[in-house]
């Protein structure tokens, strides 16, 4: 007999199950499509643990909690702690100044420092910012590692379409956009990504290219793969990536390093990220149900802390700062 039922096996649900397990609670976890895959927005994430950079556009809570993400993820998967390098095309130097003014934890880089950090970008960029405390992980590997971690304790992700009403006892609802009807104010913000493969380019850490119209991030993955992202569109419509987004992502990648022009296009994807109006994720307690939602573009950054707070609340009743009463 399970102590708690978790609905949804994206990054939030899996972490919630794991956080419960750590506290000696036996979870049951159910997802409408089973183990993690393209049906969930976690699948399309960048996997940057970049609390300091995100500070440029988000509330202080996300920065504070996000800084703990690296240590928590290290419990379950491989995390690469090599920081983030932020660059801007030379005519957009003002963007770099603005970004520097709004963030902490960075040091300025000249051309020599950029070359020392990422030799492949040597000579291409004159100024940058280095955020040494940041890290990144491979989201799909991390989801798989979390699933395995649960499996090793005998917890299998079950397949089934359920809502909290179908379940007896405590529930942690991690359905994301599928819980939209239960959570007023939750909305979808579309994100789009492209994966390229290049044998020519070696990058060892996420790179962000600031641009007033088309900002870009590139996250290196194993096997010469590079995940390109950054689009953020205020829309509730799903469906394939738009041509405009592909154009923008690819041309900005080309501006970062012209060798991307010769890269192979491996994958393109898009999905909706659930968000509340202040873009801070929360756990909403409504009777026996804890709704864990609104992770926006901070799924991998914020899921560990949010899940830990939910599990702690379930076990001891303690309400962390991300817990909201209905």
């Amino acid at each position: 007999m399970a102590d708690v039922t978790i609905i949804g096996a994206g990054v939030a649900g899996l972490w919630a199950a794991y956080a419960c397990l750590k506290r000696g609670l036996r979870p049951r976890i159910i997802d409408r499509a089973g183990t993690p895959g393209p049906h969930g927005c976690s699948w399309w994430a960048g996997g940057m643990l970049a609390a300091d950079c995100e500070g440029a556009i988000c509330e202080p809570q996300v920065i504070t909690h996000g800084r703990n993400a690296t240590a928590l993820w290290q419990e379950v998967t491989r995390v690469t702690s090599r920081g983030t390098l932020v660059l801007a095309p030379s005519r957009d130097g003002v963007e770099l100044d603005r970004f520097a003014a709004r963030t902490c934890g960075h040091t300025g880089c000249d051309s020599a420092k950029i070359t020392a950090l990422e030799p492949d970008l040597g000579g291409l960029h004159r100024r940058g910012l280095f955020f040494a405390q940041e890290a990144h992980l491979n989201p799909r590997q991390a989801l798989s590692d979390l699933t395995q971690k649960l499996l090793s304790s005998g917890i299998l992700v079950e397949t089934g379409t359920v809502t909290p009403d179908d379940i007896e006892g405590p529930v942690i609802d991690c359905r994301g956009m599928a819980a939209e009807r239960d959570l007023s104010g939750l909305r979808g913000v579309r994100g789009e990504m492209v994966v390229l493969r290049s044998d020519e380019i070696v990058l060892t850490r996420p790179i962000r290219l600031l641009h007033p119209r088309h900002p870009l991030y590139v996250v290196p993955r194993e096997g010469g793969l590079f995940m390109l992202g950054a689009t953020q569109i205020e829309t509730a419509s799903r469906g394939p990536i738009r041509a405009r987004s592909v154009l923008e992502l690819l041309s900005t990648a080309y501006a970062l390093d012209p060798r991307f022009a010769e890269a192979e296009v491996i994958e393109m994807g898009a999905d909706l990220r659930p968000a509340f109006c202040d873009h801070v994720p929360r756990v909403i307690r409504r009777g026996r149900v804890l709704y864990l939602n609104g992770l926006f573009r901070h799924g991998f950054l914020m899921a560990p802390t949010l899940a830990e707070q939910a599990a702690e609340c379930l076990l001891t009743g303690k309400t962390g700062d991300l817990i909201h009463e209905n």
Partner: protein
Amino acid sequence: MRDFYGVTLATPMMLGTARYPSPAVMEKAFRESGASVVTVSLRRERGAGQAFWDIVRGLGIHLLPNTAGCHSAREAITTAQMAREYFQTDWIKLEVIGHADSLQPDPFGLLEAAEVLCADGFKVFPYTTEDQVLAAKLIDAGCRVLMPWGAPIGSGMGLNNIHGLRSLRAAFPDVAMVIDAGLGLPSHAAQAMELGFDAILLNTAVAEAGDPAEMARAFALAAQAGALAAVSGPMGQRDMAVPSTPVIGKAWL
């Protein structure tokens, strides 16, 4: 006081909805600015979720859909027609972009689209340059409001051609005019209003400020100050000093 197709605005502020860190921040900026018009992009925001529209509608101010991102008259006309249906308003801020880098209006496409839309019953707010020939033709086409640029969209440079804007203002004294685009600082807003413009429209300068709500308030105060100055009879500039206290009759030391 000039009105906007029969509508008198409570404040001379029009604000866009793009580029804010979050809808919560956007909503606060609108409240602080006391903006009386919210402009929204149909192309970019049509698919936005109900929660986003609840916030925009909850502002309770005039909705001005725009055709941002359209590069031809045909595209802009279609977008305007969709906007009328979607937002249930015949107001349309008509943007036809002619140049991808400067986002400068395409005067030919703009006039073509304005003629079609005015004939179709739209109340057109054309995003235009300070060119008086174009302004006259837009007015002939049926536009009762003009939205000349201050500077290129998002550039924050302020009023690039004061002479041109002053001449435009003087040439069409009965037409309501909004300085749209390029404002970076509250002083630019004050200057626009001092020149006798009827409102300002901005987005980036507020949305991308470190504290959007406070910046929105700063712009609102500046616009209000400029508007007050415009109706209070500003003094003329002179080439010589004029003492405010008479010198004659004073004791010489």
